């Protein structure tokens, strides 16, 4: 228990500084967004701070580092690996919750401020804020919170798992993460192109060029079906992979011999 608490304390202290940094960064963007229209004389089309790219990048960065630098430090203290892993997972959940709350805070603050400024200076502010209008209800806020949390947590776990694999089998992981998508792409697309070209040549040789236009959609349809299947089952695939990543990352980090440790 001591090891877990110690690791958790360490994660909390190191992450706290970065959370402060990201909130300060978002606040600067927020202030800048509302301060600039009167200066440059244009009307703000405010639709909320719905872009979660920065939050996701932050989540991935923190969890990536937790699997490498922080784990190396903590194993050499020495703290048991299961304690470090549990603390890292707790950190992932806590960080996802903090980021989700930050999303809600900025969304609602933006909605309130935009509403007030629209009344005060309608020439600069007043774009419809449909995103925040939806979230600025008790139910909407909770839905938005859970939705953000749902997005952040799996991304953190994916990043942690990838970093565990990268630390354990660096060459193999890089090779697979580049090679497999390339292979899939080649497997999917090359036959499509080859068959399309064969059919197109046949059609061209026959002199009936109008049929070539019919041939192309046939093969594009196959690709569409594959992508469509992934699209329809995305949530199931996403959560199944996420659930598998938790024990997998533990078994990988448990048997890793960390450089320098």
């Amino acid at each position: 228990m001591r090891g877990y608490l110690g690791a958790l304390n360490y994660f909390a202290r190191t992450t706290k500084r970065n959370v402060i940094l990201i909130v300060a960064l978002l606040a600067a963007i927020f202030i800048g967004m509302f301060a600039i229209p009167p200066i440059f004389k244009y009307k703000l089309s405010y639709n909320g701070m719905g872009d979660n790219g920065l939050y996701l990048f932050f989540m991935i960065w923190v969890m990536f580092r937790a699997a490498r630098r922080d784990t190396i430090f903590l194993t050499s203290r020495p703290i048991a690996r299961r304690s470090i892993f549990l603390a890292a997972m707790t950190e992932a959940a806590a960080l996802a919750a903090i980021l989700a709350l930050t999303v809600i805070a900025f969304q609602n603050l933006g909605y309130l401020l935009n509403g007030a400024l629209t009344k005060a200076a309608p020439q600069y502010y007043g774009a419809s804020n449909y995103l925040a209008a939806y979230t600025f209800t008790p139910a909407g806020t909770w839905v938005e919170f859970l939705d953000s949390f749902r997005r952040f947590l799996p991304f953190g776990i994916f990043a942690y798992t990838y970093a565990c694999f990268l630390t354990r089998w660096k060459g193999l992981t890089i090779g697979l993460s580049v090679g497999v998508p390339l292979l899939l792409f080649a497997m999917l697309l090359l036959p499509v192109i080859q068959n399309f070209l064969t059919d197109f040549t046949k059609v061209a040789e026959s002199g009936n060029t109008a049929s070539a236009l019919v041939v192309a959609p046939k093969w594009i349809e196959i690709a569409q079906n594959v992508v469509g299947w992934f699209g329809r089952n995305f949530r199931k695939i996403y959560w199944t992979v996420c659930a598998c990543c938790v024990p997998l990352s533990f078994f990988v980090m448990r048997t890793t011999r960390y450089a320098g440790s």
Partner: protein
Amino acid sequence: MTDTNLIFSAENLTRSYGKKAALAGLTLTCDKPGIYGLLGRNGAGKSTFIRILTGQDLPTSGKALLFDTNPFDNPAALEGVCIALDRSEFGGVKNLREWMKVSASMYSDWDQSAADKLTARFELDPRKKLRAMSRGMQTAAMLLIALSSGAPLTIFDEPSLGLDAVVRERFYDMLLDFRNRQPKRTFLLSTHLIEEVSRTLDYVWMIEAGTLLAQGTVAELCGTAYQLSGIGAAVPQGARLLRREEINGITILTLSGERPTEAPAGCAVSSVSLQRLFVMLTDNHAEGSADK
């Protein structure tokens, strides 16, 4: 931790990295608190043994026990250990102040008043960034954390790296002070600076090429060898020559065996320091070696 007396042990422990054996059948036992020295040359296997003992690595074969249990991924056993590493590794810890707070949550017997005293004694600034500190200050910070941790087993891996002579002596004095005030603690010093630490050690393990070369108290080990010097000094019967040296026509023989009560005519008998003995036992390629 368990209630048994065993603090740690190694039983025929081996660890290989490819074809190279870092540990080749190391066997030793520690069942009594005190200050222990793990002495060996660079690459002798000291750090590998510490890594296995503290659950950071797995042995190729053999067994390492910590508080009578397997240390690997064992929270109960590892909670009783603290290490001062031989390298500057601070993870995401910013300064000494933050490190002390993290350590207070890691070690159940953490002593903040001792940490404060040691901060002053080592002349450290708790707010200064750890990475901005000199190598000596970083080492001092690690020693401070290890001493204040109150961990039943405290390990120092090369504790004097970057420290000046004054701070090194202060550290050895503090170590003796902690041993006297906290007699249930065990301190393990892994070092190759033997002469300096010998005054603090209760028991010594000398390791070479991953195996145990010699063990005993400093007095016991030093009692196994002596020096005979004089013009034309010869190896007495029953003694084993460790090294022969000639200085200004005087022959100096380092011998292992029982020290004679009376020196042969024209010769003087003197004792051998721990470092001298260690060099004799481990350096088979030196000038004047018995093996040459």
